[in-house]
């Protein structure tokens, strides 16, 4: 049974504009989940690497604040309203209401199904801030859907490249039992194949203290009886992976969802002016800037980029500008969207949670046109055939 209520409609308005200027105003609407399970206090406290630790509004607000000068100089403005939606139906209704109210862009930090409901309900460009699901870039891709956050495939490609650069080519895979784990394990396999690594064994794991299930739950038993260079753990929940390093039978590194992870951002990244961005964010949001916060911040940056590229609008001009206006993500280059699946091209940071160990694409890797396209589904794979 689906509820049909738009939870706390228009919770707050964020604004980045000089009140005095009679400028064209780009209206954007952010749709967030109501009672976001990712942001339950106990989950946020655990702060698993790669998991959200706060709402997308934080990153967006930082971007809109820092865009004030640029918008003012261009004579344009951006306003953002925020809506919470408990179900895909509510998200659809919220998107339609936003379109009716004159929004130029919709931003989402929703589940995959709710994201699709939003895109299909309106004719506006939609910026996906928080969902890494590959199907939004592949079988369920849409021409008007843009992704600020890296896909699962980009994450696993970045890890696979890093393993190649270290010559750690034999892998033991440990995979959780949730449907999401199964999907992400298949993605990891695709990356492993793409970069010529080898899986020596794949084993399911389970969180359990039951002695009858110790073969599934005990890291020593799970990792015995095979020769491998690294353990790749797929654990969307995070509890098992967190303590896996240092608990396996061989002295080998752990990668995936524990040990070394590939993320869009880490607050300890030192290059390309990144510390200033992390500092501005921490000052405003009172917490370290994560992968998800960077993606939300980039959503705000994209709004500013199109508002300054086309200061007079109208909505149609902004929609067209989105696909072709590069955005500065403080990761060393101007970032652009892939024409085939709307994914924002970007480098990935390899981190153990304490600092940034390295970046992907790894040095020396070649690509015929754009080395960033070695991360994620590339054009010749033709995995996205958009419906609209």
């Amino acid at each position, binding site marked *: 049974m689906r509820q049909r209520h738009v939870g706390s409609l228009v919770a707050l308005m964020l604004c980045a504009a000089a009140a005095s200027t009679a400028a064209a105003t780009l209206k954007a609407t952010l749709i967030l989940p109501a009672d976001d399970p990712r942001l339950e206090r106990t989950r946020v406290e655990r702060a698993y690497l790669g998991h959200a630790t706060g709402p997308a509004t934080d990153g967006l607000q930082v971007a809109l604040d820092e*865009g004030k*000068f640029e918008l003012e100089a261009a004579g344009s403005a951006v306003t953002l309203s925020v809506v919470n939606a408990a179900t895909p139906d509510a998200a659809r209704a919220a998107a339609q209401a936003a379109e009716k109210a004159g929004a130029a862009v919709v931003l989402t930090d929703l589940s995959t199904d709710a994201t699709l409901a939003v895109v299909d309900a309106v004719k506006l460009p939609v910026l996906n801030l928080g969902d890494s699901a590959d199907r939004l870039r592949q079988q369920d891709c849409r021409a008007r859907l843009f992704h600020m956050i890296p896909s699962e495939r980009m994450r696993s490609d970045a890890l696979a490249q890093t393993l190649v650069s270290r010559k750690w080519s034999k892998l033991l895979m440990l995979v959780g039992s949730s449907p999401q784990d199964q999907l992400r394990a298949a993605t990891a396999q695709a990356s492993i194949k793409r970069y010529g690594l080898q899986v020596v064994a794949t084993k399911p794991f389970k969180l359990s203290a039951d002695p009858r299930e110790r073969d599934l739950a005990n890291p020593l038993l799970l990792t015995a009886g095979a020769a491998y260079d690294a353990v790749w753990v797929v654990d969307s929940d995070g509890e098992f992976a967190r303590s896996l390093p240092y608990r396996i039978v061989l002295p080998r590194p752990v990668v995936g969802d524990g040990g070394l992870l590939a993320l869009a951002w880490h607050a300890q990244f030192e290059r390309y002016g990144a510390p200033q961005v992390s500092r501005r964010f921490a000052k405003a949001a009172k917490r370290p800037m994560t992968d998800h916060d960077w993606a939300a911040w980039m959503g705000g940056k994209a709004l500013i980029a199109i508002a300054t590229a086309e200061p007079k609008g109208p909505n149609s001009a902004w929609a067209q500008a989105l696909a072709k206006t590069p955005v500065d993500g403080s990761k*060393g280059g101007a970032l652009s969207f892939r024409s085939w699946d709307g994914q924002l091209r970007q480098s990935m940071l390899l981190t153990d949670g304490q600092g940034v160990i390295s970046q992907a694409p790894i040095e020396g890797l070649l690509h015929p046109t754009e080395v960033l396209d070695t991360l994620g589904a590339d054009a010749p794979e033709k995995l996205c055939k958009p419906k609209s």
Partner: protein
Amino acid sequence: MNRKLTSRLGVALGLITLCAAASTQGTAYVSSEKDDALTMIDLATLTVKGTVPTCKRGRHIQLTPDRKIMVACTDSNAADVIDPATGKSLRRVPLGDEPEAFDISPDGKTLYVSNEDAAEASFIDAASGKKLQSIKVGQEPEGVKVSADGKTLYVTSEVASLVHVIDVATAKITKNVKVGKRPRRMALTPDGKELWVTNELGASVSIIATATHTVIDTIKLEVKGARAQDITPVGILMARDGKRAFVALGKANHVAFVDVASRKTTNLVLVGKRAWNVALDKAEARLFVVNGLSDDVTVVDVAGAKPIKSIPVGRVPYGVVIVE
């Protein structure tokens, strides 16, 4: 005439290195972000002859009108003033929070500083260190350049992709000039008519006419075999006669020699990783290029447009000044 002289110097350098070297006396001082020290390179031997301790995370480094070394230290919120004669610090000047780059008024009395975290440009009294003015600018202000008459100040904002034109007398922004993506450093032509601005993520140099404060041209920087996203120009320097500009191309690991009149790149010189800032010796015979990611300085023979030597310096080197 001048060019003839430099080319002759270049030949001499190539043929009898020792003799040519013996005639150049002086020191290059290199700031580095992770040492809290300046590295001294002997100009005669092109070897490191020692270090000078300084404040924390030294970045932009310049000579004051009275020939003292001034280095802005981001983590000390101050500039260190060092006497090159003794190698000792004379004094520290507070520069406000997180100073990155600065410039000095023609009379040497005022310092203009970009405070990257506060997104401000500050005017500081060089003698007392007192903050005289602070002006809100776009996020991550970087390059700071004052006009030769001291009346106009230019500050770049990396995030807003703007050059702020500031009237020094009133301490007010008079114009925001939109340039390329992530503008970093600036150089003025000696006649003061053109302001050249490097755009790190635009792979270009924007040229602003100072009479109108509008962009009159954009020079696209290209390196054969390198993609545009790998060409990230930062440091820029004009030759004294204003005929040539030197642009460090960052990730492209090259320095471009650009003919100012035709606005065309004439030479590209391969240097170290992430070529960042540059300085010329007095004779303008040798260009010192600071390579941020290979922890070294490449010395380039200007006449021959060839690298002569790479010299290991501190960790994450940033800027260089030459005292002869």
